[in-house]
């Protein structure tokens, strides 16, 4: 069975703790993305799975076997590196063939395998070139080809698309996804690009400071972020996070004071249990519904800067006491800079985070 399991994995570098008590289980055929800002420990976690780093504590279990003490070459895994790490002295063909030597197959079978992945990744025209003489996109495909040519326990990808331009990135995202779907292996992809994670992953693990803050499906992390960090990290434009005073609940609405302005917002029923005090309200830019000026239960603001984004318009607005708001509206709604806005929200789209940054939710 192709599975990966991390149990309480911790990694110290001197006095610095890069990875703190990470628990993660990837089942066969599942693609999990480790997503987070640079320095959050996601690459270290990947290298621990690969055996390139030793965990200071905890267990790495691959295909049901504890692998802590095994070297990378004994783990039977395939990895794609951020900078591709192609073998400079070998031709593309030999690069792809390199991992096959461990399987001890005859030359004929090896050649067939190479031909198969070369066809799959459109590398046939460059098979006899050296890595320095092919394009960036081709290098990336060679790296993928080298990983999928074998039949390993699992796949690891370290920032696989970060070096490609936007257009190529889109193509490769689809290509990698389709290659992985056909292989049904446990796969871990490290990325700092949320779009990459949202589109390629079955589940996303969002990391910060060596800790996994939330593991859930792409929809879940977007719709129901469990912490303030996840809420602010996922989604573009960024979620609006307003510091507010919580004054209790009235029916389905919570009463808050934002910038000295009392407002009622539709909230999750769990908010009832929350004690009065300082909270953070999170509202996605697309969750605002512009209303007529002065409507009840709305946040007031003034449009400052208008950025047309094609189908939608991004409005940078400011509340009377100076908090910034990002609001995205359909392009049909015409707003001019300086216009007064009155913004209503939807219960499903209003997130309340308690004083410790945890989401208050049923």
């Amino acid at each position: 069975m192709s599975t990966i399991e991390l149990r309480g994995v911790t990694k110290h570098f001197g006095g610095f703790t890069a990875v703190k008590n990470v628990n993660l289980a990837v089942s066969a055929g599942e693609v999990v993305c480790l997503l987070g800002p640079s320095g959050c420990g996601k690459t270290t976690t990947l290298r621990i799975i690969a055996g390139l780093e030793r965990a200071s504590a905890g267990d790495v279990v691959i295909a049901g076997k504890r692998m802590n003490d095994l070297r990378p070459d004994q783990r039977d895994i395939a990895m794609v590196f951020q900078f591709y790490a192609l073998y400079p002295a070998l031709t593309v063909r030999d690069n792809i063939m390199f991992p096959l030597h461990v399987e001890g197959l005859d030359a004929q079978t090896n050649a067939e395998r190479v031909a198969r992945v070369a066809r799959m990744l459109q590398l046939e025209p460059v098979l006899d070139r050296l890595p320095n003489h092919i394009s960036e996109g081709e290098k990336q495909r060679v790296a993928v080809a080298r990983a999928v040519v074998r039949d390993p326990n699992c796949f690891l990808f370290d920032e696989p698309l970060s070096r490609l331009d936007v257009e190529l990135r889109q193509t490769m995202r689809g290509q990698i996804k389709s290659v992985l779907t056909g292989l049904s292996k446990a796969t871990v992809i490290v990325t700092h690009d949320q779009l990459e994670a949202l589109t390629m992953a079955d589940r996303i693990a969002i990391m910060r400071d060596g800790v996994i803050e939330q593991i859930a499906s792409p929809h879940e992390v977007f719709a129901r972020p469990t912490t303030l960090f996840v809420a602010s990290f996922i989604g573009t434009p960024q979620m609006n996070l307003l510091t507010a005073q919580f004054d209790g609940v009235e029916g389905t609405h919570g009463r808050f004071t934002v910038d000295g302005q009392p407002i009622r917002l539709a909230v999750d029923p769990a908010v009832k249990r929350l004690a009065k005090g300082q909270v953070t309200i999170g509202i996605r830019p697309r969750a605002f519904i512009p209303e007529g000026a002065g409507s009840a239960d709305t946040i007031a603001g003034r449009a400052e800067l208008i950025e047309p984004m094609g189908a939608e318009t991004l409005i940078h607005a400011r509340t009377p006491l100076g908090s910034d708001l990002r609001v995205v509206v359909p392009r049909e709604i015409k707003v001019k800079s300086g216009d007064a806005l009155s913004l209503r929200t939807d219960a499903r789209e209003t997130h309340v985070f308690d004083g410790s940054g945890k989401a208050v939710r049923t």
Partner: protein
Amino acid sequence: MTDMTVNAPAGSAPSARMPLTRRLRFGRSASGVGDAGWGRTIGATIVSLIYFFPVFWIILTAFKTYEDALAVPAKFFFTPTLENFAQVFSRAYSAGGPVQNTGFALYFFNSLFISGVSVLLALAIGTLAAFGFSRYPLKGNDTYLFMILTTRMLPAIVVIIPIFIMFRVTGLAGTYLGIIALYTVFNLPFAIWMMKSFFDELSPDVEDAARIDGSSDVRVFFKICLPQVLAGLAATAVFGLILTWNEFLFALLLSGVETRTVPVAMSQTIGGDIGVRWGLLAAIETLFLIPVIVVTFALQSQLLRGVTFGTIKR
């Protein structure tokens, strides 16, 4: 890119848009003139000729008779003779005396054998040591590297007495083993430092990738790392070879009759009852130059990358 180099018409003008690295690669294109332009090429030719002149003069002298070699003013045009070359290997030591074998065939063999073996040994040991220092650093790694370098800081003349005594006591004096070991030790610091700088430049990711792809450390070294440092090996070999090939002082004191090298034998050819035979010396010198030129020429494509390594950032 390689195809373009070959197809570029001879003397084609340099392209200003071309990135620097490419132009450097093109600088060595088949046409020779290529991107440098005629002005620079002529300038470089003149400088090269000035440097080459002593060598040219040696070769010219090798073909001169005793009288021609000493002629004042110096002769550029004369009837060449191969007499000197023949006399390198066998000649009469006094006028009218018997023609004897000079032993130079053996001395040339000694020079080739001793230099070749010691350079190869230094390269093999030095490369492995450099890989170790680069990839598996010890506590106090830099201290060890510095200590290795200090062995080259003293001038040879300072250490010759202790080494001479060591060779006497151990019975290594006059043996191939002794002189080869000494030259190997001579070349090692350079080989280690040079090769370490090459290994340091390699991407560690590439080695990690090879490990993940199922390679042992040994396979990583031979299949992945070594092919990437061929330029370094070539440069190290040529430098080591030149150093060893020309070495005189230690060879003079520590080699025996059977293990004498060409520089020592050459010095002993100076003198004799009719004065210095410049033609003969020049003939020995000419023959002596051939192996170094051949090796340098054979490795020149790697050498350029080797000696410019680190000075040009890719």
